[in-house]
């Protein structure tokens, strides 16, 4: 799993030559007059050459990112379509399920964040929160994260809204929460729970992971659908006649979820398991950058 995460991150950053300044911020804030005791390396000699006065360059304070990855391990995440990307390192049954995809993506995100000295935590849940690792910046924390991610999960029924309502207690006071889920459940209840997370100063990013089959419903024959969360529930249907109605339903559900997220200033990203993992990671990093900039602006506004 670590290899998958590293390949994803390195593949994404290959060709870049950007130095990493650990422990300090690279964001310039303002100049101030030099006072004795200031570090000489902070003096801006170019300004001195122009004005014949000593000014010290002052930067934003370093704020390490505290990111908590919440990963949905309910039964519905076990669906594995034919068209999903091949993640042989993490798959258990030959086909990549949404769960596998979410696990690989979580590992990649953790690897990327830890490599930037950000703190990364992990919450897994199905019917309730199962595993919880608080955010840490240590590189050794990656091993712990991957161990939890690689552990077998039970699946089963879930109610996303209830889990999200219980999650803030496990989260740090401020930080970013990345929710890897398929988003199946009561959208309005999910919205209320997300609102509660937002009130705890959590920047939430929902990465909705769906299989391509769940979007275009490619079935035509007589199909018996067996519920992944409750295997005793089955429905024998003529998939061809059901298709149009299903597509309309999934479209409405996703639109409602997006609408809820927009209302609560929650970042929503839809991913399908047939997309390369690196693209999904790129999407995350892009959004992370936006979150940092947004929070910095917010911090300046607060001063």
């Amino acid at each position, binding site marked *: 799993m670590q290899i998958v995460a590293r390949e994803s991150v390195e593949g994404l950053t290959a060709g870049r030559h950007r130095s990493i300044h650990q422990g300090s911020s690279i964001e310039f804030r303002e100049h101030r007059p030099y006072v004795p005791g200031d570090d000489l390396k902070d003096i801006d000699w170019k300004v001195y050459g122009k004005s014949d006065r000593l000014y010290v360059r002052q930067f934003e304070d370093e704020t390490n990112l505290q990111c908590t990855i919440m990963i949905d391990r309910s039964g519905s995440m076990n669906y594995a379509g034919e068209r999903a990307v091949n993640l042989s390192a993490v798959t258990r049954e030959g086909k990549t399920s949404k769960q596998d995809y979410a696990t690989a993506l979580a590992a990649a995100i953790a690897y990327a964040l830890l490599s930037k000295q950000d703190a990364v935590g992990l919450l897994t849940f199905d019917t309730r929160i199962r595993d919880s690792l608080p955010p840490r910046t240590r590189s050794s924390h990656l091993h712990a994260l991957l161990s939890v991610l690689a552990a077998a999960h039970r699946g089963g029924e879930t109610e996303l809204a209830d889990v999200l309502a219980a999650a803030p207690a496990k989260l740090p006071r401020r930080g970013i929460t990345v929710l890897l889920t398929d988003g199946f459940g009561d959208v309005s209840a999910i919205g209320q729970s997300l609102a509660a997370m937002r009130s705890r100063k959590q920047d939430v990013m929902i990465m909705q992971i769906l299989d391509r089959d*769940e979007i275009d419903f490619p079935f035509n024959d007589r199909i018996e*659908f067996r519920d992944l969360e409750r295997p005793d529930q089955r429905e024998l249907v003529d998939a061809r*006649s059901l298709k149009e109605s299903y597509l309309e339903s999934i479209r409405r559900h996703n639109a409602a979820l*997006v609408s809820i997220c927009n209302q609560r200033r929650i970042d929503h*990203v*839809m991913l399908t398991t047939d997309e390369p993992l690196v693209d999904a990671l790129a999407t995350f990093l892009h959004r992370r950058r936006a979150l940092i900039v*947004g929070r910095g*602006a917010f911090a300046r506004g607060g001063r």
Partner: protein
Amino acid sequence: MTWLNALMATASLSFVVPLAIHLLYRNRFRTVDWGAMFLIKDLVQTNRRSMRWQQWILLLIRCAIPVLLALAMARPLVSSLQSAAGTAPLSLILAIDDSRSMSATGRRENLLASLNALLESLSSGDEVILVAASQPEASLTMSASRAQVKLSELPFDSGPCDLVVLMSRAVDACSDATYPHRKIILASDFQDDADQVEVAELSLDQGSQAQPSTSNGAVSRFGELRSRLDQMNPAVGVDWLAVGNQDASTKKSASDQTAVGNISIAPLVQKTPVALVGQPVTLLSRVMNHSDRDTGTLQCRWTIDDALVSEQTLRLEPNRWQTVQCEYTPSQAGNSSVRVDCQVVDRIAADNRRHMVLSVAPTVRVGMVSSVPNEKLQSLAAVEFLQLALTLGAKPNESPIQVERFSPRQFQRWVEKSTSSSDHTEAFDCWFWLNVASPQQMAPRGQVALLEDWMRNAPPVVFVDGDQVRSEDWNAIDLLPAKLGNRIRLDSETSLAMPDRRYSVWQNLANADDDLFASVQIKRRRVWPDADRTDASGTDDRQMWLSSITGDAVIVHDPTTKITQFAISCDDQDSTLPLRPVCVPILQQLVYDLSGRGGVSKVLPGEAIRLERSDIAESRAMEIESGTSEPNWQSMALMATDPLGRSILVEPLTAETGWHFDDTLVSGVYQFDAPELRSPILRLVDVPASESTLGIMPEERRDALAEAAGARQCDDAETLLAATELDRYGREIWRPLMMATLALLIIELLWQQRRSIRPVAPMSDTTRVSSQPEVAA
């Protein structure tokens, strides 16, 4: 329903194949572990019922396809209740309207083509009964090939055809059919008046065309015939072949413009009431143009006894007619054949010529009976006045009117002789009874019944009033047109009024510049209690020919008894009529007119010509001197020569009644001759002018009649054949079955396509593209 290939029908059991497939695959499905079950559960409930319906319909379609295919390949025949059982022999009754209008260009050809096609389609076991409108009896059953020959021999030159009668005869002929399966085909042009009993005849006297009396009972009569057919077992089918409907196509295809319309000659009319030797006779006719084109120059020729008499050139505008006439002075007595013909090419050739038989008498013989003995001068005046008026202007013994006087006793003897003998050599053309006191005075042996018997076949009688007439005796018998009242002297003299139009022969006298009738003063007259002021409009049969200016009838005529009655005497005691010049033309014209009424009778084609003994006797009387012994009627061999020149021996019906000749299908003049006769007897077979009009019955009326008769209507051979084959074999319905199969296949295919390639709505941007919350700048 029958099958041409019944074995293939068993293939319809293959419907079990899709059924089995359906049942087999009903429990075969794929199981998919699905995450978004919460979305499917809501949908399954709403879609389950429609899914079930769709599956049932699809199953039905799939089962129906092999069934319909098998049925189509089995070639089923749907037959009506009236149909024969396939190859069962059929009795076909052909009712043919062979009237002259059917001989129009195109109609006859279409009829023969259609019926020949039908007859050729019959099998050798079938039989045909031919019912021609012109022939009184239906033919015996014959084969189809023989019927074709018979059809081709029909002259199509008979008189108007009454469709109801023709149909009725066809229904009667059904009982002569050998086979139980019968079918009637009535072929006609459905001429405009074909459903009406009486036919319009051209009347030159009236100067206009008489209107036919419409018969609105045709529909009900056809309905009655339909009821008769329905009572037969099996019911008899009826088809009508309307050949007149194809006139439009004939018109388009006709290259010769003159052949498009029709030009006809109306029946000839003799303007002069009686034709006498040496007296000019005027013959009239009309040439009518029934087309929408100008006729161009036409040459009309009058021929009498094959000698050209007159020639006339004329030109007719579209739909107009013109009178043509010929003046002819017969040189000898006897019958003459008159013909007028017009050389033109048109749609009906037969009506371009017209015949008549002109009967020329040597003189008009008038018998004059007076009740007063000749030696009494007071009565002699009336006889002398009358004889003078009738013979004025001619030399003695050369007058065209020969008058012979009789006393009542002489008259009695003459009546006795004429009724007991067949010798008509002493026949008179007209009788005048002058001042006869009573009928007993005229009756043989005083028996009035004998007089009444003689009167039934007697020539016209003119009863002239007088002071000897005893009204009570004449009123005791119902003989005279008017009951007799008293003779009265008028207080003031009154004159004659202008003649009424009911008797038009005196019109010329009335139309003269000087009113000749006004000069006649009436001083005394007989009162007619029931006939004075007789309604000229004709509430009864009596006709008032002359009246006074006060409206009192002076001359009354009863066309039934042929008795003309005068209210005044013919001497100068009652009126000044014998003293006035108008008396001569009045009385002469009256004698001519009464003598000439009747003339030579004519019959329609197909009707029998009946020759009485009197006809033979008259012919003999013209050539043989009186006193010849009674001919031997039994041994008389009468030969008929028809217009085509064929000689046929006429069999006497009975020796006592006369001869009966019914081979009269061809119109024209028929000659009857025998060694005992010096000159042949001529009779005319003629077709009314109405047969020259080519108008056809309005479609609505024909539809109503066909509906009442339960008949299908066909216009050509193709539809007639199809209708007959439908009745006989039924309708083959493999085509609609095959079409239904193809339609179901297409429906099934489209259904499948719709289910498999249902358009998938693209994901909206809001779901495809991840949303991003607004970030504060």
